[in-house]
């Protein structure tokens, strides 16, 4: 039974996750894309051409000038979380291609995982505090954060603890990518980690966690070209 569950989590659920996430992301992207936007209510200084708009969006996504200006605590937490997550995911991706774990990957990967986990813990505490000062959060808001916190903390633990047999893990990853699944690693903490990660990925395109897509449309709305003198 335990073996069947591990097989399902490690070899079947990834395909379900990929399908759900892709379809939902495409649905959401198209949903926002087809809504007409004949009136532009930009915020100045607005951008004047598509290249500037795209550069502006990228800057807004990676530098977060708004939070940095008005609420440094959000900015620090967001930076910890996002940079940590990006580095962690990059190392995950790199690992699929080159199944080695040198000291750089080990220390930097561990640090990135810890940073991302600290970011989510900070957001969790902030959310509790915001119920008194700014706005109430819902179960769904907390659920998303708990999922992230648990996934990242366990991931950091797996990396620091050196628990995994990397040769075995790479064979498993290659099996999934080549549609030839093999027996997965069965360490329970690893299975919990990938289960939570997959639930999160499926949950991601729904509700407020759609913001990776929303940000493209939202920032475009406020950065869009406006009317330049003379009209």
């Amino acid at each position, binding site marked *: 039974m335990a073996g069947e569950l591990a097989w399902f989590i490690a070899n079947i659920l990834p395909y379900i996750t990929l399908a759900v996430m892709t379809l939902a992301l495409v649905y959401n992207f198209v949903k926002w894309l087809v809504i007409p936007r004949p009136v532009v209510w930009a915020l100045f200084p607005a951008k004047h051409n598509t290249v500037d708009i795209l550069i502006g969006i990228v800057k807004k996504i990676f530098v977060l000038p708004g939070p940095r200006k008005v609420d440094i605590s*959000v900015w620090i937490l967001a930076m910890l979380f996002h940079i940590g997550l990006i580095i962690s995911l990059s190392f995950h991706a790199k690992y699929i291609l080159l199944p080695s774990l040198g000291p750089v990957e080990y220390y930097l990967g561990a640090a990135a995982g810890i940073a991302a986990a600290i970011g989510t813990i900070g957001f969790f505490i902030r959310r509790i505090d915001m119920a008194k000062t700014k706005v109430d959060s819902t179960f769904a808001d907390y659920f998303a954060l708990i999922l992230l916190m648990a996934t990242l903390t366990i991931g950091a633990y797996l990396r620091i603890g050196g628990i995994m047999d990397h040769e075995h893990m790479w064979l498993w990853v290659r099996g999934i990518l080549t549609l030839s699944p093999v027996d997965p690693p069965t360490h329970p903490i690893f299975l919990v980690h990938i289960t939570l990660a997959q639930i999160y990925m499926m949950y991601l395109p729904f509700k407020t966690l759609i913001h990776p897509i929303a940000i493209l449309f939202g920032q475009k709305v406020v*950065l869009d070209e406006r009317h330049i003198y003379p009209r």
Partner: protein
Amino acid sequence: MVEERTIEKTEEKVVEIPKWRRVFDDYRAMSDEILRPDEPKKEKFLEAMKKSLSKQNWPFLLPYKLTLEACTKCGTCAEACSTYIGSGRKKIYSPVYRSDMLRKIYKKHFTLTGKLFGSLVGAKDPTEEDINALAEAVYRCTVCRRCALACPFGLDNGLITREARKIFADIGIVPDELKENGVENQLKYGSAPKVPYEAFMDILEFIKEDIEEEKGIEVEIPVDKKGAKYLIMNNAGDYLAFTETVQGIVEIMNYLGEDWTLNSPRTGVNDVVNYGLFYSDEDLVRVMKAHVETAKKLDVEYLVVGECGHAYDALAHFAKDLIPPEERPFKVISWMELLDQFIREKRLKLDKEKNPEPVTFHDSCKWGRTGGIYEEPRRILQAACKDFREMYPNREWNYCCGGGSGFAIMTKDDFLKFRMETYGKVKVEQLKQTGAKIVATICSNCKGQFRELINYYKLDMRFSGVSELVANALVYED
């Protein structure tokens, strides 16, 4: 209906001043006649909200739905909001809290997850009290959109405020200052304060006499001149309360000998305000079209928007998207752009020594964040004033004064106190830090708010339009 009473002592007797029932906070923006707090309105509200979420609301559907759905409630917007900061960080004044009042209803009635999971995802069926509270809550935000600038996702709580106002307007709940005494009067009489032709001409005569007395020069004030190059349309407030601004414009245009004109109510609408911008797309377009018709009737080359921020937003930006180009055969330009152009062309000889006092500039939200006019007034003031100093933060990060979106003319109940004790508190701190003796601004609503702020906080400074400072610095050749 009257639940609370305050007592004010006068010399003769004790006067009881009734207060309307509190439905959201300690203030009321709308009277009982407008809000009708005891009248059930949930069904009508939901019907109007359904319409607002349909293609009938085509101009703003994307940013509206996006903001309702994609907000993660990170709370960044709160720290950008001067009502929230000025109130001592009261939860009810945070932009995300206000939007969430509408979002809860949206989730409950218009989303599958809300219907399935209810409060777990933040959905809530509104009570009649919730609807009343929301109606007032949306008149605690000036739609300055500083929160939208700060939002890491580009979501717009200011737009949500405006959309909610539109829903309420659809069921007849709009402050009478904006609708009945604003838009309707303007369309009927040519100006919101119902200034008749004769009175308007008298005002211009007074302005002419004042210039002649103060400067010893004779000026012409062309009115309703057909085919002029520039039609300068001013805010009615500038004709009635802040006449120095119109006086400044008249003097500058005479100095230049430009081909220009003002217009009287006889030509259609001579008050450039457009309160429809604050609460309704339909009324926004009605007023916009009246402005366009007036400019067409006078066959001018440029419609110049005087010192009125929201009018510029309406005519320069919204009109471009909402009125086809062939129906507006003239260019729209702001008085600031034009004045800046005259100065850069060195057509105005100015002596800064004539304005020796330290001057700071307040970036009005509608001129700045939603208008893009940041540098023109600065260049003008630097050319006309000896000691120009910036206010911090400035430009797109400037704080709203608290007079925006019609608040400057809303004083019912304790609403003036709300304006002073929230937005006003933040703005006054900014003003004090400059050490300036004059705060210059180019918006009639801002001027109205500064008048009250200076009085309320006993500030050792005065407010001014930019035009009068320039006119004051003019050097006449003998």
